[in-house]
């Protein structure tokens, strides 16, 4: 029993281990939340630009910008993107590393979210748009009140998946000098000369976070399904 207590202290208490783990959890959560917010807003915006262009031929210039953005983000490793944001774009700006990470991951995630939303918008029957427009709603009102709510419901599983991927992807943020869960694990590992327990602990922390996220998203999904009979 005493030995177990000793072991626990070794990995989670001694030499500031508690603070590393707590800081790590906080960082992972914060970066994920900031990135999620940026990603969803940016993704929706890009999806609207893309589908408006596809349907009406308008917004030509914005559509080109959106496509360049999608190509670059999806065509390069997120690791390079993070380092680029940290060492080039924000190199001379005094900004918290967590914020930099959140922005970088948000811009990264936005590209994937955009394609998810776009497929959702395309999946809504065009009769829905016609019904909205024939009632005198303009295209923005039709999009906001009729198309997007249905599209959102259709893509929720894919969106949840993207959120999970994002949460786990933040594990590379240690590379810009931030202590997240993964970094905390490696710090504990270097102090204790043991890899198994810290890495296993980090894995469990991620797993728990993903399970919490999945739980709440599942609840949301069930609530949105109430109109299905």
């Amino acid at each position, binding site marked *: 029993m005493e030995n177990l207590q000793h072991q626990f202290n070794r990995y989670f208490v001694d030499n500031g281990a508690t603070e590393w783990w707590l800081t790590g959890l906080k960082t992972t959560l914060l970066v994920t939340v900031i990135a999620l917010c940026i990603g969803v807003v940016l993704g929706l915006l890009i999806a609207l630009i893309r589908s408006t262009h596809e349907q009406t031929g308008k917004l030509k210039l914005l559509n080109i910008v959106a496509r360049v953005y999608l190509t670059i983000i999806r065509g390069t490793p997120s690791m390079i993107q993070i380092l680029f944001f940290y060492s080039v774009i924000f190199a001379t700006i005094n900004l918290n590393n967590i914020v930099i990470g959140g922005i970088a991951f948000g811009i990264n995630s936005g590209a994937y979210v955009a394609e998810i939303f776009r497929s959702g918008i395309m999946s809504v029957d065009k009769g829905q748009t*016609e*019904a*909205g*427009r024939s009632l*005198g709603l303009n295209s923005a009102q039709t999009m906001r009140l*009729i198309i997007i709510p*249905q599209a959102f419901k259709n893509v929720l599983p894919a969106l949840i998946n993207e959120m999970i991927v994002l949460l786990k992807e933040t594990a590379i943020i240690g590379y810009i000098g931030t202590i997240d869960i993964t970094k905390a694990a490696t710090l504990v590992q270097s102090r204790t000369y043991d890899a198994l327990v810290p890495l296993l602990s980090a894995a469990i922390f991620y797993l728990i976070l993903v399970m919490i996220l999945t739980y709440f998203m599942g609840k949301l999904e069930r609530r949105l399904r109430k*109109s*299905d*009979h």
Partner: protein
Amino acid sequence: MTTNEKVLIKVENLQKSFEDNKVLDGISTEIRQGEVVAVIGPSGSGKSTFLRSLNRLEIPTGGKIYFEGVDITAPETDIDHVRQKIGMVFQQFNLFPHKTVKENILLAPVTLKLMTPEEAEKKAMELLTRVGLPDKADAYPGSLSGGQKQRIAIARALAMNPDVMLFDEPTSALDPEMVGEVLEIMKELAESGMTMVVVTHEMGFAREVATRVVFINEGNIQEENTPQEFFANPQHPRLREFLSKVL
């Protein structure tokens, strides 16, 4: 009987092509207040395209359409505003599945600030009673039968207090046993004086309810007449052939 009424819709030499395919080839006609015009014709004749041009769901490639004197084919026309006065009912109902029946009806009048939520709510319940479905106010469309959906779709269009109602094959997607309930609502609507343009395959409806029947074939109006004359005395050989097949 309606020839002295005011012209609601005036169509002049309406043309529509999809790339090389000419669907409408110079249609001209007038729809007067209180008329119930049944539009019939073989599939692919352009009758749906004609109807959908009347509220610019299809953008004509030539010709003019005036609604209450306003040229709706002109790009500067505020089509959203014009559409508030033109109700439309679709073959596939197109109810909003994420909204309850009542919300479907309320959505446009409240969003467009034509009614307060309280007024719209009252109007919605009146309309639901009119189409015989007041108990479905809080149901979602997914739980309704096809006939019920179409009756709700009619109520939704009526909530905007339109001056004319367009029906695009409103009973074609219904099980045969549900056609009657929808036609009954449409008949009552016609009797209340609503101006209606109805693309339909229901010859009984055209004969009994319409004040004028229009035969569209190969992108043009080949014959139009009162229902009595239209069915008793068809002139155009293509119409005779068509009627011999559908009657």
